[in-house]
C-alpha cells in the first residue's frame, strides 16, 4: 500500500500546492444569494476531483479584492 506523506504546510508558500497550473481553481458560479446562504452552480464529472464540495469544506467566492469564505452545507 502506498502512503503519501505530505509535509507540514508553510504558510508563506502562498498556497503553491493549490496553484497547479494544470488544475483550475474555478469551481462554479454564484447563482443565488439569500442573506448568509448562497447557491453555486457547477459542473461535475465523475472523473474530476470533487472533494472540495464535501459537506463542511470551505470554498471562497471572489468579490472585488476580497474573498468571501463559505462552508458547503
Amino acid at each position, binding site marked *: 500500500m502506498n502512503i503519501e506523506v*505530505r*509535509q*507540514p*504546510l508553510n*504558510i508563506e*508558500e*502562498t*498556497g503553491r*500546492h*493549490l496553484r497547479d497550473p494544470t488544475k483550475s*481553481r*474555478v*469551481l*462554479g*458560479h*454564484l*447563482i*443565488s*444569494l439569500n442573506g*448568509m*446562504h*448562497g*447557491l*453555486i*452552480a*457547477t*459542473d*461535475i*464529472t*465523475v*472523473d474530476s476531483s470533487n472533494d*472540495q*464540495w*464535501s*459537506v*463542511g*469544506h*470551505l*470554498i*471562497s*467566492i*471572489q*468579490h*472585488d*479584492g*476580497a*474573498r*468571501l*469564505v*463559505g*462552508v*458547503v*452545507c
Partner: protein
Amino acid sequence: MTAPDKAWASGATNNVLIKVELNGVVLDDPEGKPRFYRGIQAYPRLGAIAHRIRATDLASIYAFNGRVGIEIGKLSQDDRIPAKVSVEELVSRHFAVIGSTGVGKTTTVCMLIQKILAARSNQRVLIIDPHNEFASHFPDTSIVLDSDSLELPFWMFKFEEMVEIIFSGRKPSTDETDALYDLIKSAKTRFSSAQTSAPSNALSAVRRPATPETGNISADTPVPYRIADAIQVLDGWMGKLDQTYPLPVMRAMKNRLEALARDPRYRFMFGKAMIEDNMARVISKIFRIPTDDKPVTVVQLAGLPNEVVNSVVSVLARMAFDISLWGGGGYQIAVICEEAHRYIPKDSSLGFGPTRTAIGRIAKEGRKYGVSLGVVTQRPSELDPTVVSQCSTMFVMRLPNEADKAIIRSALAESSGSIVSFLSSLADREAIAFGEAIPTPMRMRFANIVRPPGVTPPAHEAGAPAPALTGADVFRVIRRLRGESGD
C-alpha cells in the same frame, strides 16, 4: 447539494447546485498577507466565481492573529493545517466535549488536559470519573482517589448532602429533616465544647486550629463531630418522656447512622481517621496544594455506593469553588465533569439539588475566581441549559440524536448553523469545534494522545478483549462487594 435534473449521467458532465453558508471574508493586508474577518461586509454579485480556497486563506482563517494557540489536531479539509485553540480562553471560559458513546470523548478530553497542563504550569485538574477510565491516561501526573484511597470525612458534608446519604436519596419528612439538623448541630457543638474544655491537650490544639465559637456552629459548618456523640444525643432524646421528634424517626435514624458507620463501603467517610480535624490535609491532597508534580486528581466514583455519589460530587465541586474563591486568585483548577447530564440534568426534579447548585455556581461565577468547568456528555439535550450556555467553547463529535443536535444548533452563531447537519456523519475523533477559544468554527480531527514511554493503552482502546474471569476472580469480586480492601 443537489442535481437539478434529478438524474446523473455517468462519464458525462452533470450540473450540480451547491448550497454554501457565508461566514467571513479574507482580505490581504498592506503587506500582502491574508487576514480573515468574521461576517460579510459586502455581498458578491450573481455570477461571481466560486473557487477552491487558497491554502494561505485557509491558514489565515484558523490563525490566531496575535494570540497564542496550541495545536490539538488537524483540519479535516487539509491535514497540513493545524487546528489550534487558545488555552487561556478554553480554560477560563469553560468548555464542553459532546459526542455519542464510542467516538473518543475520553481520549479527546485527556489530550486536551495534557495540552492545558503543558501550557499552564499552575493549573490543577479535578476529574470526576464515573467509569474509572481516566487514570491510565495520567500515570505520572495524577493521583487516583477510589473507594480505598479517597478520604472525605462525613463532617465536611453540608446538611443537604448528609440528608441525601442518610435517607438514601428519598425525600425525608419534615420531622426527619428537623431531627437530623438538630442532631448534627448538637453533635458538632458537643465535640467542639469537649475540645475547647481540654486546652492542655497540645495535640488537640494542633488538630483543631480554627474551630468557630460553639454558638456559631450550624449543621453546615465543616467542623468535626463523632457519630458516637450523635448516637448518644439520639439516645438522650429517645429516653425523654416529652419527645421532640417521633420515636420511630429517631430509632430509624440511629439504626441508619450505626449502619453507615459500620459499612466498609463508607469507610472513606466514616473511617476512624475521619474524626480528627484533618480538613487541611484532605483538601491539600484532593486539590493538589502543592501539586508535587501531580496536578491531576482523578476521583473514581465507580466503586462508591450509588447513594453517595451525588453528595461526593457536590462536596468536591463546592470545595473547588470555595478554595478558588478564598484563594485570592492564586489557585486555578479545572473541574472535568464526565457524564455531566447525570449531575446537572435539565429536569430539575431529577439529580441532586446541591450538586446542581455547586456545578452551576462554577459555570456561572467560576471564571472570576480561577475555577473552570469541562463538561463531557453524550446527551446535551438532557443537560441543564444554563450550564450548556456557559460553556464558551464546544467540541462536538458524532451526534446522531436530533434533540441533541438542536441544542448544538442553538449554541452556534446563526451563520454557522448548517454545520450541525453533518454532525451525524463525523468520523471517530473528528469534531466540529467552535466558540471563544477558536477563531471560527472548524471541522477537525483530534491529535492522538501522547502516552509516556512504557504506558500501554487500556484494553478497550487497544481493541483487545478483557481477560476472562476465573474462579479466583469471583472471590475478589466478593471481597469488593463486602467492602474489603485489596484486589
